[in-house]
């Protein structure tokens, strides 16, 4: 087990100007499950490959434990990578399917068998070791892939989108298993995904990247509750946070004919900015009993279980601009107060749950 540290680590691909990873500083604790998440091209896989030694670090450094591994070849880094694309070999037993890479590294047979047995115990596959993989169910197969990494007893597990080719049901099942397994093994894990749901449900902490730059690293709940900038605010959460630009007025920010109250000290941080963007999570809205709320034209109502989802736009847009008006989503608890389509409602806001962002720096002000 070990900590992992990126220190101003950058990677510039030949023939490009913009670094794929730009001065990454990230400290991963011993035994921590760190998820790197972001849209395609954000640098998450490159960061992982830099840690794996598969991608050159052009400047800065990477540490595993106290060792500077920046210039070490992959095989000397004591890491194990779990790939999304794994094959199960039909002629080999489940045990051999888990341990064959050790054979490639010339690990002695007895030790190989012991390590495979230990891994199989952790994975609940002990009784399958002498069976052929065809005996395995869809849910057991990814565990063999995990087993291949576990038998190597690495200091760090690296996982690059290991669930991306599984169907929805298996993905949920395997996601839970990987998270539970990681907790049990306590091995430092760096996990790359483009899927924020995976990130939020699996990670002890989540690092959000965009265009090669680390946007924020924090626990899933802190990312959700206090996103540091507009990108993180829009990226984390599903349905996404409503981001609405409004005009700064005395005591708040005006959306339609309604002024959302914003504390004076927050407005002060905005200096001379004329507009600010307010972020409001769909579930923090409620339908207002009076005129105290943002006016919304309801376009669609979706009932899902106990809750309903309201989709609409800010009221007051001229007819020809409605198509371009930003959509607002509200999750209303209980079907009791659900409004109808094509009506206008006011959505009340809890001022404690309004996120305020600068339109200049895109950073959080509240």
């Amino acid at each position: 087990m070990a900590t992992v540290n990126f220190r101003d680590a950058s990677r510039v691909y030949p023939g490009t100007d913009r670094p794929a990873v730009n001065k990454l500083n990230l400290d991963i604790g011993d035994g921590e499950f760190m998820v790197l998440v972001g849209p395609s091209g954000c640098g998450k896989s490159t960061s992982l490959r830099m840690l794996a030694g598969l991608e050159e670090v052009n400047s800065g450094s990477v540490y595993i434990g106290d060792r500077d591994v920046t210039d070490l070849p992959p095989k000397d880094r004591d890491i194990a990578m779990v790939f999304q694309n794994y094959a199960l070999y039909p002629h080999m037993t489940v045990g051999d399917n888990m341990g064959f890479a050790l054979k490639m590294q010339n690990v002695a047979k007895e030790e190989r068998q012991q390590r495979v047995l230990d891994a199989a115990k952790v994975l609940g596959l002990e009784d399958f070791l002498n069976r052929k993989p065809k005996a395995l169910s869809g849910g057991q197969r990814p565990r063999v892939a995990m087993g291949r990494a576990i038998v190597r007893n690495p200091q760090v597990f690296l996982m690059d989108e290991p669930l991306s080719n599984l169907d929805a049901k298996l993905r949920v099942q395997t996601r839970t298993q990987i998270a539970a397994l990681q907790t049990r093994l306590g091995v430092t894990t760096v996990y790359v995904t483009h899927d924020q749901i995976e990130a939020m449900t699996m990670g002890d902490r989540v690092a959000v990247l965009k265009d090669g730059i680390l946007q924020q690293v924090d626990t899933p709940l802190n990312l959700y509750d206090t996103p540091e900038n507009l990108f993180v605010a829009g990226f984390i959460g599903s349905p996404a946070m409503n981001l609405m630009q409004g005009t700064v007025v005395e005591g708040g920010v005006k959306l339609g004919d309604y002024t959302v109250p914003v504390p004076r000290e927050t407005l002060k941080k905005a200096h001379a900015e004329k507009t600010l963007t307010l972020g409001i999570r769909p579930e923090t809205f409620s339908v207002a009993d009076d005129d105290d709320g943002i006016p919304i034209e309801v376009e669609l109502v979706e009932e899902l279980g106990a809750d309903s989802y309201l989709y609409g736009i800010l009221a007051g847009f001229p007819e020809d601009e409605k198509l371009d008006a930003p959509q607002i989503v509200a999750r209303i608890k209980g079907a009791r107060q659900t409004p109808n389509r094509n009506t206008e409602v006011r959505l009340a806001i809890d001022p404690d749950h309004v996120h305020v962002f600068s339109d200049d720096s895109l950073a959080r002000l509240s």
Partner: protein
Amino acid sequence: MPRFLSAEPDTRLLALPWDVSLADWPVEHLVALPRGISRHVVRFIRVGDSVYAAKEVVEHLAVHEYRLLSDLQRLGTPSVDPIAVISGRETPSGKPLDPILVTRHLQFSLPYRALFSSGVRHDTVLRLLDALVVLIARIHLLGFLWGDVSLSNVLFRRDAGEFAAYLVDAETGELHDRLSAGQREHELQIARTNLFGEFCDLEAGGLLDEALKPLTLVETIEARYRELWTELTAVEEFAGNELHRVESRVRRLNALGFDVAELDIETSPDGNSIRIQPKVVDAGHHSRRLLRLTGLDTEEHQARRLLNDLDTYRFRTGQWNVDQAVVAHKWLTDNFQAVVRLIPQELRAKRDLAQVFHEVLDYRWYASQREFREVPIAEAAMGYVKDVLIDLPDEDISADVAAADLGQSPVNPYDPSQGFDDDNGEQPYDPWEDDVEDEDLPAPFGGFDIDTLRAGKKG
């Protein structure tokens, strides 16, 4: 209603049972062909007189692979031809099904399991490995990171005395402007593991010659790749009076089957030393030349063999001063087509015609040696048909040579990934699978539940 994404729509596809999970397709649509193993459900399907490969896979991967295979085709890479992605599938009861990616079955192709099944000679294995190495180097020159180099993801075609390898799975591929050393190392690391696993699997199934050791094989592949990559891309420095080394580098690359489209040459200010590096290198040196001269589209080594025969023909008929294109045209009629005309229609599924011509040339050489005379090409062709071709198996759609010889039969003849009928004990108990059925599915709109997360331990 299923949706078809296709650049060249094949209307015969419309009538297929897209509302049925691919694993349950009626056998009348299926063809049992040997192939590699796969994590997804893959079937060969017969559509009229064509054979296609169908793979059921999640939507973003299906579309990604379709586009990448189209790009690879456009770049002239030996890879399978994508036909369509069929998405929006659902069962009659409305249950959604994953999309299916359809690719064209590569004619005269041989999956490695077919080549290895009846035991294989040591030098044949080395030729197969060389073909794989050339394929990896070729795609790397184009900036393509495969992400899943394995024998299962390759098809081989006969190429004169060698093999040509084709990429058949681009699911994990990425196309870049060019690859960094790190990306190529990554590829090699995956290749080592995958190939080692596959060789061990062949060994476990009794399909690998005992003289062949998995570790030696993967080390050979890696070493040969590095050697080839160095020859293709490395900087070479020499003294200013050794200018012939520029030409010899180009000749060496041509001999390996590559054209040099751009060569970077730097001379030191005093002119005492020269530094060269190939910048743009294209595979297919001989096949392009043959195509230009004769219109014949062949594999690289076949092209080299045919071009050699063309040169011999030119010499023998005393046409050194005649325009090359004119001689090529005469050679095509007098030699190549003369042989082709002698191959009975019913035997043409055994080998592609360029391969037949190559084998006829071999046959003629041995016949001439044996009989101390110059055997005419037409006579050699007739002898070859009678003595050799007639006994060869059909390879246009490779025959099913699954492991039946070894007393093992596949659980499902249409799916080798399911293993063999050799392991039918009772299913052991697995506590991890206990509550699988109760597992909460993700919310149908794809959202996640923040309340559950707040209540949970993490965060």
